[in-house]
């Protein structure tokens, strides 16, 4: 997708399911709302074609009795929860994502139990997060962008290359200086704040994937016929047996 200023954007592949983001502009969306709300019964609207709904006559008004559901309106406060969209434009440059991918993989590398952060799409999540249309996310965008620039400058200063091109030992040498804010030297405080944020975002992204959930042993979200006490091994571990 191209943005207004012609910058190339990297998109999370998942956002592709959101049709084209700019396809439904705000005014069209409002029209859909008005038309949809004017129909007395819209059972199953969630699965129907939005265009067809807009074509319906909007002559009747909403004072007709309704049954239980008119379905989601597709607005930010009433999104389709069954078919989520992550369709805001992504802001990070491809080059920034290369640096972030390298850093994520230093934070969460592959090991015997699970793959690396970049292998499960962590950089795309960071892009989704910092591009989101909220104040906190906008602040994180500044921190991530500034951090990526700083990291590459620091890498070049110390080793003559950008971060992604460093050896593992060189990457570690820098990360050791910024991995823990309370112990970071004054000149590394900003870098440490950036590292903190990327570590938090990477952990969120990684441990919400199948691979991440499996790694830490989340085994819920399955329907069970009955609910029992915890397994004996658990009770024993806790001294409850």
């Amino acid at each position: 997708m191209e943005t207004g200023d012609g910058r190339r954007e990297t998109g999370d592949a998942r956002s592709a399911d959101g049709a084209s983001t700019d396809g439904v502009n705000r005014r069209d969306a409002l029209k859909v709302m008005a038309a949809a709300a004017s129909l007395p019964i819209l059972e199953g609207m969630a699965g129907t074609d939005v265009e067809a709904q807009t074509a319906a006559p909007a002559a009747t008004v909403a004072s007709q009795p309704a049954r239980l559901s008119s379905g989601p309106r597709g607005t930010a406060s009433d999104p389709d929860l069954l078919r989520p969209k992550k369709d805001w434009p992504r802001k990070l440059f491809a080059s920034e994502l290369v640096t972030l991918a390298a850093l994520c993989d230093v934070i969460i590398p592959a090991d015997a139990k699970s793959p690396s952060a970049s292998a499960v799409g962590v950089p795309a999540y960071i892009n989704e997060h910092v591009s989101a249309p909220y104040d906190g996310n906008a602040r994180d965008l500044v921190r991530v962008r500034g951090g990526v620039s700083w990291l590459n400058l620091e890498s070049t200063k110390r080793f003559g290359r950008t971060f992604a091109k460093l050896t593992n030992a060189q990457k570690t040498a820098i990360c050791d200086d910024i991995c823990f804010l309370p112990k970071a030297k004054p000149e590394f405080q900003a870098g440490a704040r950036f590292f903190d944020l990327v570590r938090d975002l990477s952990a969120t992204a990684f441990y919400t994937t199948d691979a991440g959930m499996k790694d830490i042993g989340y085994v819920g979200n399955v329907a069970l016929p009955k609910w029992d006490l915890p397994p004996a091994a658990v009770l024993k571990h806790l001294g409850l047996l």
Partner: protein
Amino acid sequence: MAAYQLAVAGLKVLVLEAGRTYDPVRETPMFQLPRDAPLRGAGTREKPFGFYDATVDGGWDVPGEPYTNAPGTDFRWWRARMLGGRTNHWGRISLRMGEYDFKPKSRDGLGADWPLTYKDLAPYYDKTEMLVGVYGGDDDLENTPRSSPGVLMPPPAPRAVELLAKKHATPMGIPVIPAHLAIMTKWQDAKTLPQKIHPTNKLAQRVLRESMLSRQACFWATPCGNGCSIKANFQSTTVLLPPALATGNVDIVPDAMVRDITVDAKGKATGVHYIDKNTRTDRHVTARIVVLAASACETARILLNSKSPAFPNGLSNSSGLVGKYLMDTVGAGIGGQIPALENLPAHNTDGASGMHMYIPWWLYKEQLGGKLGFARGYHVEFGGGRGMPGPGMFNGLESFTGGSYGKKFKEDARRYYGTFMYFDGRGEMIPNEDSYCEIDPDVVDQWGIPVLRFHWKWSDHELKQAVHMQTTFAQIIEAMGGKVQGTVQTDGNRAIAKGGQIIHEVGTCRMGEDPKTSVLNPYCQSWDVKNLFVTDGAPFVSNADKNPTLSILAMAWRTTDYVLEQISKREI
């Protein structure tokens, strides 16, 4: 509840809903994972409790529908503009108020007494619990009533963290007992319950039987707060409105923003003005009886905005008390990391999504003896464990790991996952003169309706209670061998949640024995307008630590019984 009870009794009911219609059966994301949602499901301005939260068009800020705060007040008003309102979004915690809770002033001289006793409401608690499906234990503790035999569903087996807390809290004299939640742990007995609940009403028995047969027991997965497509928990959109609609006596008009209640020359309510949100046009519907169940603050707003020559200060406000004695629940909490939970064998801790065990208030005697420095109690909601990974799950882990990254970080994640527990106090607030809502003379919303302005002040009772909560929870965490996260506050202002944040606003149209000191009579009927009733949290005289929804439902049922009686006596 009122719509259901009046409809099964054969009355024609028109429900005006300020938001859209909503059907959890069709719309609930049941097994969807955070990774499928924007921002891994994190809360946003438009979906403050997370993307998958059942609330539609709601939250702390509703665009186009502001409210204001008086200087020095930072009250938060949660609204849900959707069919079923907040019953789609709540903890399902269903604790009965006890004997003390109805007569708090008689007990300690503070606040005011209710014009009814526990015994008056107990039969309605029983029927409500049978109707909606509530699990709970059979403990018989002070001011913590047990239900009649056969009413409750069996409580689910405790989780590991709940057993661990119980082991360490019990020697401290703190009881840990099965919680009561409006979640079905087994199928409702559709053969016998409808007759028990509605002994002489064939229509009610039929629609309730059909409704009960359409509900399933909890399958121990998916968060209740997202809604429940199998109808295992209580939300009015799955439990009360479908049988109400099945009577053929109910019409629902969505997107109908009520402006005011109209009255005739004799001061009787004639109907309701509302704005059709889709066409922005004013409409009027007439009715023999008007029942307000708009949530405590919205109900007060409608009454205060219903001004006429006969009622210049708003409707049902001859006492001047509409909007006054606004209460919320005292909230304070603290969390900790529990080393005993490290490296626990992987196992499923989802359960009924809400808590299986809780801590009821246990220091009644010490409190009455003046030993605590605050007059009312709190209960404790706690939990933790190996829940579904979500956004921010390992934020701040570096304070435990010294900033680890790389393979060590992955080992630390495995070690610390599921080792954090939280304890949240939910306490009684005593009504005071400084906490109320009124109409802001200068601000209207996008429908032209004057908005509410809030005034708020905690008393020392609440502030000290909040400190007691944090101090006590830290002691429990330490008794478990855990490390408390954050600072245990000695200043209650730093510990306590903001007014409104616990989303238990009640009390704006309190009931009572005397029209001079209350808005409603002991049956939630307006003293001033005989055919006007209130069936939300507004009639509450006090706000016990027991979460209000169950009591609102039971009270609403009692009120509709009175409405029907008044109709049959031709009083209204």
